[in-house]
């Protein structure tokens, strides 16, 4: 009562040190101050009061006012930062002892300083050795330069369209006898390099020499040096494979032999893919757009097909609106909605916006059949195909048609499929626009690489085809479930050419759920396996050997399921079954396998740097491995089985959940690997000592596999997705027009079909209005759209578009999704690959994966896991803390 009264009067007694009245007033003040300063976040407990009082009195009586530049009464706070003296906990004495021990005995002799010194010394040596290498290879430079120039001339020749045939035929014929002899010599030498057996020391020297050479070459810019790196990598890898085949099979044990052969065949597959991958990506063509004739009247007519089956009308609407605004003479562009779903709402919409609507009497052969039917109903010279969720930007035909007009033998121009919404991998791993996604490698690099060899293939959407050749091959192929690749294969067989323009000039929705994503990949994998059987690119007429290899590699890529599963389980054969599947001493094995992996990884990092980060390919493959393994195997043996499944897009995931059904195979693999690890540790402890090195190697492999599997499991945890209209993050300057006549600078942070999120300097500027107009620019023109303000705080304004007229909607799509430069800088935003950083990202993802796995597991596991985590957290509080060398305030 009295307390309350005092408080109301504004007199608040400071809770202060109890025995203060014993001292003189100035000392009292000082003690009060110190006492208040030592108060922690939770205030004083009883023990805390006593402790602090005792400490303060002790410091006052026995210590100098300042020790090592710190006021002595603060000393405890400074030396024991993790202990709150005002509210001590039970473990604090132990923490204090640990910290004291560390301060007294370890910190003064801390290894860190010497470690730092060693690290910098290593760095210095490294730098110097690299400099030396570069210098010693200096004489090599003219050679490198001339090689570079020759290469550039070559590509120029290829780019200049009349090229392809000549280039293919010329390789052998144009060579002089001297060159041929040289070639033969090189082949002999490399055979020698690959097959000669070395002693352990010789192999070590050989490997070191190649590695040093690679290090020096890595420092040299340009494509020629990366080609030389490829050669080095090929030598090392082929030597490894040769050694594996000839020296490491255990002919004495049947199981060992069988399992060894299984692993060897998986490795052979990986080696072949590596080889073909190098071939495919050695020189991405990076074609640039070709100028169109000046007079638009001479431009050809185009039929734009938008096939749809079961997608929402809203999804299709966006594509149609974007197509309506495309830069092409209006009377020369016919837009057709090919509706296999036979929905009246689509027909009405088509009539409303004045585009053609085609509905066929049957549904045979799904999308391929749909397009083929439309081909019979239309007659323009060119056919552009857009999946109903792929929004073309307005510059699409301007950029692509030039090549078709220039080269009459060109039957196809393909552009990348760019996705503006995160795919399940990106969403579940939360790395959208941070780590290049699965498709980046294919559309960023592989298709561009194919283009050099004239082997770019059709991807079903975002492409233009010439009608005549397409009709010659009987329209879109219907025999396989990947009708697109098969169609371009047929075009190539007829001698037509294809081109790839790696500009993101259209954008679409990625698949929504992991199961749908995997379903789509299964379809691709099955289709590719089917083509391999029905219409094998390696045989048959019409193709050049380069094209054969490009197609073959694409198909081979989808057969990765089984080999990947073998790699993920191989070390278990040794750890659990006790079979030597690689029958070689551990040290020798390391001497062969490590260089093979290091060279392959570093070359791939250089070639694919911007499109696929190191180790992520394995994660992507591991997720799919189990699922594509069966269908591809089935399709290889019975190519006519199986049906077409449509990829569902534009859905909603109501809440976070863990897709146990999809994740089952990874969990099985994880459990197997855990068993392997446990058994391996048991063997290290109690097994025979001569096996330990082999156990360690296999354990390392298992740990790596578990890392990859953990990241794969992380993908299985589906993250919530509520918004139906995905938002696209951008930064476009615009101005807002208020009804008061004010015009404010703003920035669009993201846009969707529903509205915009804007950034302004101060929300006060909006003067509490609920509506405003936004002026979006397209080229030199401004378009005004009304907006309803949903929220405005901290300089961010969320807005929603009211219902717009058709013309306004077309304009809106044109100013956002279909703006020519909207997607251009996405690719540049990715950093170059740094393997170590990439490894860190994979480890992080794996950590999240296991965390998710354990927290979502059946009943007792999450509780046990939580308990263990709690205990570990508690233990870390005992860890000694570093004490800063400068005094704190």
């Amino acid at each position: 009562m009295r307390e309350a009264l005092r408080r109301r009067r504004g007199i608040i007694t400071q809770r202060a040190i109890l025995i203060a009245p014993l001292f003189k007033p100035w000392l009292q003040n000082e003690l009060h101050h110190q006492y208040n300063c030592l108060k922690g976040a939770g205030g004083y407990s009883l023990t805390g009061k006593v402790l602090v009082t005792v400490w303060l009195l002790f410091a006052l009586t026995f210590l100098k006012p300042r020790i090592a530049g710190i006021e002595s009464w603060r000393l405890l706070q400074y030396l024991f930062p993790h202990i709150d003296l005002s509210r001590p906990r039970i473990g604090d004495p132990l923490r204090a002892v640990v910290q004291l021990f560390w301060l007294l005995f370890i910190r003064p002799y801390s290894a860190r300083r010497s470690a730092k010194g060693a690290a910098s010394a290593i760095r210095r040596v490294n730098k110097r050795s690299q400099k030396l290498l570069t210098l010693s290879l200096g004489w090599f430079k003219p050679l490198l330069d001339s090689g570079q120039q020759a290469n550039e001339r070559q590509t120029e020749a290829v780019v200049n369209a009349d090229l392809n045939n000549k280039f293919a035929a010329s390789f052998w014929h144009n060579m002089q006898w001297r060159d041929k002899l040289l070639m033969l010599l090189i082949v002999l030498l490399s055979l020698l390099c690959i097959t000669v057996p070395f002693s352990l020391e010789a192999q070590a020297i050989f490997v070191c020499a190649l590695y040093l050479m690679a290090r020096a070459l890595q420092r040299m810019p340009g494509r020629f040096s990366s080609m030389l790196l490829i050669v080095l990598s090929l030598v090392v890898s082929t030597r490894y494979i040769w050694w594996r085949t000839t020296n490491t099979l255990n002919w004495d044990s049947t199981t060992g032999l069988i399992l060894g052969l299984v692993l060897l065949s998986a490795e052979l597959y990986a080696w072949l893919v590596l080889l073909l991958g190098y071939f495919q990506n050695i020189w991405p063509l990076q074609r640039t757009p070709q100028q169109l004739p000046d007079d638009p009247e001479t431009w050809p007519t185009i039929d734009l097909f938008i096939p749809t089956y079961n997608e929402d009308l809203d999804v299709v609407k966006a594509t149609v609106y974007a197509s309506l605004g495309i830069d092409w003479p209006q009377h020369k562009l016919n837009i057709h909605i090919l509706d296999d779903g036979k929905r009246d709402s689509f027909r009405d919409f088509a009539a409303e916006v004045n585009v053609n609507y085609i509905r066929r009497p049957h549904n045979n052969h799904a999308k391929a059949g749909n397009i083929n039917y439309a081909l019979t109903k239309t007659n323009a010279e060119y056919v552009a195909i857009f999946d109903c969720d792929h929004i073309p930007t307005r510059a699409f035909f301007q950029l692509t048609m030039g090549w078709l007009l220039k080269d009459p033998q060109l039957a196809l121009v393909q552009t990348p499929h760019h996705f503006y919404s995160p795919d399940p991998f990106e969403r579940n791993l939360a790395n959208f626009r941070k780590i290049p996604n699965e498709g980046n490698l294919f559309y960023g690099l592989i298709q561009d690489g194919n283009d050099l060899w004239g082997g770019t293939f059709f991807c079903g959407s975002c492409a233009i085809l010439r009608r005549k050749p397409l009709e010659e091959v009987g329209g879109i192929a219907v025999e396989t479930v990947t009708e697109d690749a098969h169609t371009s294969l047929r075009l190539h067989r007829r001698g037509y050419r294809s081109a790839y323009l790696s500009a993101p000039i259209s954008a679409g929705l990625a698949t929504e759920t992991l199961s749908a994503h995997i379903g789509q990949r299964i379809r691709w994998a099955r289709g590719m396996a089917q083509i391999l059987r029905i219409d094998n690119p390696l045989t048959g007429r019409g193709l050049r050997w380069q094209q054969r290899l490009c197609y073959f590699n694409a198909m081979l890529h989808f057969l990765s399921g089984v080999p990947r599963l073998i790699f993920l389980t191989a070390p278990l054969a040794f750890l659990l079954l006790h079979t030597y599947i690689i029958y070689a001493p551990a040290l020798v094995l390391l001497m062969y396998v490590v260089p093979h992996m290091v060279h392959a990884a570093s070359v791939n990092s250089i070639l694919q740097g911007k499109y696929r980060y190191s180790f992520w390919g394995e994660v992507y493959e591991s997720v799919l491995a189990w699922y594509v393994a069966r269908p591809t195997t089935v399709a290889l043996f019975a190519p006519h089985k199986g049906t077409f499944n449509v990829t569902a897009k534009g859905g909603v995931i109501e809440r976070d959940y863990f897709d146990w059904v999809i994740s089952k195979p990874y969990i099985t693999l994880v459990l197997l690997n855990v068993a392997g690890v446990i058994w391996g540790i048991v063997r290290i402890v109690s097994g025979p000592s001569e096996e330990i090195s082999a156990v360690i190697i296999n354990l390392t492999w298992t740990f790596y596999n578990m890392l990859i599997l953990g990241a794969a499991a992380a993908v299985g945890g589906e993250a919530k997705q509520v918004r139906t209209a995905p938002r696209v993050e951008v930064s476009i300057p615009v101005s807002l027009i208020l009804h008061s006549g004010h015009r404010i600078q703003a920035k669009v942070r993201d846009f969707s079909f529903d509205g915009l999120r804007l950034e302004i300097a101060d929300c006060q500027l909006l003067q509490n209005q609920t509506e405003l107009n936004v002026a979006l620019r397209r080229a030199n023109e401004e378009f005004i759209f009304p907006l309803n303000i949903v929220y405005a705080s901290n300089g961010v304004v969320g807005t929603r578009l009211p219902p717009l007229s058709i013309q306004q909607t077309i304009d809106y799509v044109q100013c956002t999704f279909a703006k020519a430069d909207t997607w251009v800088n996405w690719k540049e935003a990715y950093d170059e690959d740094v393997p170590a950083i990439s490894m860190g990202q994979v480890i992080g993802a794996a950590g999240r994966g296991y965390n998710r796995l354990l927290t979502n597991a059946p009943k007792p596991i999450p509780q046990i896991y939580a308990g263990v985590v709690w205990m570990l957290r508690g233990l870390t509080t005992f860890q000694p803390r570093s004490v800063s060398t400068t005094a704190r305030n």
Partner: protein
Amino acid sequence: MKIILLHSVSGGSGVTTVTANLSAALQNLGHRCLAIDCAPENVLALHFGVATDTIAGWATSTRASQSWSDSGFEASDGSRVLPFGMLTEAALTQLADTLKKQPDYLAAICQALHGQPLDFLLLDLASPITGCFSNQLCALQKIADFSLLIARADTQTYRLLVSHPLYSQRLMDSKLLLNSVKTENELQKDLLLVMRHEFEHCLAPNVIHYDASVPEAFAHLQALKAYAPESAAALDFHLLALWCTNQLRQATE
């Protein structure tokens, strides 16, 4: 020192506002500016915060046979203005007569300023061609480095520019700047497109949008940049200033 001439197609185009704001924007870019008011309304000085009852100006000085150099003012941001001054009707007629005899009087003032620490000299010829000092224009145009013709995006302006011989000749040696454009207005938007197409070679790349902040800033006797830094018009003037400096640099090169 670069001389920029600002004149208009028809009355009320906002030449004075543009002069004041352009001067402020140039000053903001680190250039030293002086704006000279050549219109008897004597409004420009207000934009620079000169008190409303100040009667000093170059015209008043001329009338009193004093030196005009004492009648300049400096604004808080360092930009300077030479007002016209307040004259009665009789005095104005007299001045007009005097100036008729000396058609290069204003040009001489500009020339006299050449030694001064100035980067830009902006001449506000608010009244259209047919105004009372039209005879000075010829000499001024000769010494000007750059001349901006300010117009509104309306049908009248468009007609004058397209078909009137007086203006088509003017367009030959000036750049056209559209002021107070309302892109949300369908007619203005269309006219803007048409003008962009037809006057491609002489149209300034950016327009000054209609923005209520401009008159508000004037009413508060503040520079636009200080009053409403986030307004679109502030950005427009900033861009205009950048473009002007760029144009003049190109011209000298």
